[in-house]
């Protein structure tokens, strides 16, 4: 029984990454209608950004949490302005192919310069150590990841679903011409939204840097699972992607305990089941 609690908690930790990444994807898909395959590469860039800040500029973890998402977010906005913008109104497939190509290029460049084994990034001193919870030893850093990503997820949800700005955004997706008639700069809003989604990916990257090696392929390994999460939760649904992210982390954690060999595939089995029963995803609305 104790082992079970421990696995549940570990599942929540992984779920935090799934939630943060799938949230960014959902925001981008919901507002821009782009299936952002570059998300994993941008997540990796976030981790590398934290590494460079520490090793080249001596800027530590806490500032990296703020600076890396901004830097990578700006990179994302440049991508949107120079490339993705031209795909508005075209079939989803074009955006998918373009972002997939960008991901391959970015990963290839990083792999060329930094190899595949990755670079070390230490846990910040304030979050070192752990607590004995009776049923498991919880590293402080992992606890921090769960709490912090939960807060970020809820804040993003609030921003989009409950504020004036969010209302403009949602309106702009529904009918951009009408929203523009009210004097709102829709293209700029879309660029900023892409930047926000990308920033969330970079933030997840910084959070994961101390846990995993900072590796060029860290995003490629994760992104496929995250896409499955988004499909299960329903494309474009903000709350859906947050809840599914955490839930799938837990389910995966339990699989690692009961039948570890299947832990890489369980998410996809679930995806197939959900698609068979409810093709729009658990919380998705029919397009």
């Amino acid at each position, binding site marked *: 029984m104790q082992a079970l609690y421990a696995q549940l908690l570990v599942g929540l930790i992984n779920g935090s990454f799934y939630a943060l990444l799938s949230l960014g994807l959902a925001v981008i898909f919901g507002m821009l209608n782009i299936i952002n395959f570059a998300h994993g590469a941008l997540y990796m860039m976030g981790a590398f950004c934290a590494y460079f800040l520490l090793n080249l500029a001596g800027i530590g973890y806490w500032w990296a949490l703020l600076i890396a998402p901004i830097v990578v977010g700006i990179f994302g906005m440049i991508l949107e302005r120079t490339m993705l913008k031209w795909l508005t109104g075209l079939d989803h497939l074009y955006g998918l192919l373009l972002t997939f190509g960008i991901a391959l290029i970015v990963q290839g460049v990083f792999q060329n310069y930094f*190899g595949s084994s990755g670079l070390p990034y230490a846990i910040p001193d304030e979050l070192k150590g752990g607590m004995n919870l009776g049923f498991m*030893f919880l590293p402080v850093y992992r606890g921090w990841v769960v709490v912090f990503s939960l807060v970020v997820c809820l804040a993003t949800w609030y921003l989009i679903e409950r504020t004036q700005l969010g209302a403009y955004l949602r309106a702009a997706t529904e009918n951009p011409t009408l929203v523009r008639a009210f004097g709102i700069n829709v293209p700029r809003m879309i660029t900023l939204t892409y930047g926000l989604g990308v920033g969330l990916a970079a933030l997840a990257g910084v959070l994961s840097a101390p*846990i995993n090696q900072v590796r060029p392929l860290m995003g490629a390994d994760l992104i496929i699972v995250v896409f499955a999460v988004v499909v299960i939760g329903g494309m474009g649904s903000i709350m859906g992607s947050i809840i599914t992210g955490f839930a799938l982390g837990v389910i995966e954690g339990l699989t690692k305990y009961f039948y570890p060999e299947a832990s890489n595939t369980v998410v996809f089995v679930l995806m197939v089941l959900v698609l068979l029963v409810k093709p729009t995803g658990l919380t998705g609305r029919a397009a």
Partner: protein
Amino acid sequence: MKPKFIAQLLLGTALLVGAAAGARADDKTIKIGVLTDNSGLYADLGGPGSTLAAQMAIEDSGMAAKGWKIDLISADHQNKPDVATNIARQWVDVEKVDIFMDVLNSGVALAVNNLVREKNSILIDTGAATSDLTNAQCSPNTIHWVYDTYMLAHSTGQALVKAGGDTWFFLTADYAFGAALERDTTAVVIKSGGKVLGSVKHPLNSSDFSSFLLQAQASKAKIIGMANAGGDTTNTIKQAAEFGIVSGGQKLAGLLLFITDVHALGLKVAQGLNFTETFYWDMNDGTRAFAKRFSERSKNKAMPSMVQAGVYSGLIHYFKALDALGGNPHDGAKVVAKMKEMPTDDALFGQGSIRADGRKIHPAYLFEVKKPEESKGPWDYYKLVGTTPADQAFRPLAESACPLVKK
């Protein structure tokens, strides 16, 4: 017009004669194929570095001066046996590759081993770990050069049990290599009087090991044996530190670690780990000289891993055998037989030999990773703590299930 035409005709005939001569026994062409993981989790320990090592072996061999023409090609097998087999088949049938080098990843190696035998080509495997390559699956076309799971299990396993680590729990990569390493280590642990409390299999190339580590922690085993490699091992070690496994009194045993892994982890995390290798760049003047030249030409100035060193050493011996044969017969089994006849001797692995089962033998070294304050500079990572002599390091022929071994 006419004399020119005749001259052309003569030239053409001369070329034809030359080409026909090329197909005879004194043919001095060689084509080498480095088949490895160029982009995945093992790319740093083999990958482009293996191709560089092959290039250096070609340059150092002096074969060109003796009239040999050597081609080198390389491909990425993506750690997928089916991809590897397709490339290998094309290499033999279309590219006319004479010899396969590196071929890391045990799953890939077993597949290529079969194909190479069927096509009478040559495989010098320097990267795969499974000891089956020279046991039940042994072949007259394959030489297993650097290390294997039997050797790793005996050297590291025995040393740890002797030091009091008599209860074990395994974290095992879920494919041919992990299974072989766990099997061979379990045998050693039990034979030395220890006990295996359990094991958990994780998928290849996992990023999160916390669930598996919690199970290892709960087993209360004194030693957690990591039967995995590359990125999987570095992530396990890093996350074990986070979960307080080492500070809780359990010890991690890296059954297969490479210098590139230690470099990626940093000494702060890796210090104190014990593991076995058969090559380290800072062993003697010969290894240092090679490593210096290698590092200057490699990406990120990396030092050679034992896999990459093996590619160099294996090719040097292959060239010697061909030179002794006086030409390339393009007959894999014949060349391998010649290689087995000749003693091996090179700057990296010293003197050794190749046994009937295809096992190349040389000493095995038990290393400990230095503390950060003990390291004098970049890549100064290992302390030698024990040596197993060549004749004891690998599976005794008496225990072999290889049909090539006459008993």
